[in-house]
């Protein structure tokens, strides 16, 4: 179990670094992005495997954790917390659900005239869309909440400590 969580976290860290690289973060941010991605995805894996939470709820708690740790890491790296947590959240995007929605839509179009099949595909598409959208929304919300709890702290990350008067 522990090994599974670690492997999961490691893969998420690699994914976080890669998705982060697209947005050109400062070099010092990569380490923290990797750790945050690993914490978030590892936690979600744990919650879904042992506590059998659904993907949306588990993602919410995981993104809360990412948000909380980014408040600390932001201080360490002098990066705004969005710089750290946006790439870290990306490995948690429910890609399979998104894919299944698109596939079901295409199959629905193809089988439109067959009532039973069409209804099945429609239902499949709809449930996949609902899971995708709510998971993404909760991911964005969970990490962002910390900005609203601690606005002063969240918005002074880039002030260098040595320079403080």
């Amino acid at each position, binding site marked *: 179990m522990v090994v599974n969580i670690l492997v999961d976290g490691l893969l998420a860290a690699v994914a*976080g670094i890669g998705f982060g690289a697209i947005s050109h*973060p400062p070099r010092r941010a990569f380490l923290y992005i990797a750790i945050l991605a690993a914490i978030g*995805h590892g936690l979600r894996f744990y919650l879904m495997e042992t506590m059998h939470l659904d993907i949306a709820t588990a993602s919410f708690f995981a993104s809360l954790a990412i948000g909380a740790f980014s408040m600390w890491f932001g201080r360490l790296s002098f990066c*705004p917390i969005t710089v750290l947590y946006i790439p870290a959240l990306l*490995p948690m*995007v429910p890609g399979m659900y998104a894919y299944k929605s698109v596939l079901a839509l295409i199959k629905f179009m193809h089988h439109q005239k067959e009532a039973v099949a069409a209804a099945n595909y429609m239902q499949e598409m709809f449930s996949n869309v609902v899971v995708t959208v709510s998971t993404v929304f909760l991911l*964005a919300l969970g*990490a962002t909440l910390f900005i609203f709890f601690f606005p002063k702290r969240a918005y002074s990350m*880039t002030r260098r400590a040595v320079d403080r008067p």
Partner: protein
Amino acid sequence: MTKTETEINEFTRFIAEYATCLLGSGVHTSRVLRNSSRIASSMGLTISMTTFQKSIILTVSDEAETHLLTRVIEIPGLPISFEFNSELSSLSWEAVDKHLSLEELRQRFDTIKAKPKMKSWLVVLLVGLANASFCRLFGGDFGAMLVVFISTMIGFFLRLQLQHRGINHFIVFTVSAFVASLCASSALLFDATAETAIATSVLYLIPGVPLINGVIDILEGHTLTGGSRLIQAFLLISCSAIGLSCSLFIFQNILP
């Protein structure tokens, strides 16, 4: 403290470039406003700013309001850069803490803007690795990971090339999604988890930055900018979905 008209003029030119650079490289609205007014107050000036998706309206005045200057500035379409976000935010604190003059500010601003970016081949490689491990997270086997690694690199390289040529964003996203998922469909030929491979191959296109900035903006009351960011993100996601569905349309009968 009163300032001469030329001083205000020059400062306005600087802050206009600073603020639009931040907005163009994917920073949420309230941070841009805060950073800009922080610099302004370090100079004894006040600014008011209204932001839209494509332009900002900026008014600069000295504290006595003897001189006022208003300008409308276009926001350049820059690639997203977290580096600008961090370093330019830092610069605004430095302006306060070290009482930098306008020349010093301008100099540091230019240094930050001139910093070399990460080499594109390295970014392409990292994105390929990222998507391959993403594929693994969704339960793909090693064959699928390899296919995803290669097709993501092809797709992302294509995206960079097309963007470099200044082609419309929506076309870029649709074409890169189509090409990446088409390449990933080659997993159908091998004994690999093809479904996972195709599903993951387009995920490097998720516009995470406008999505989350949109949510932040709306929650902070900048509903218009936030809304337009979300619409933009939604359209880009739709374009990737269209690209993906072109591939799925071709292979729909062999797919599980």
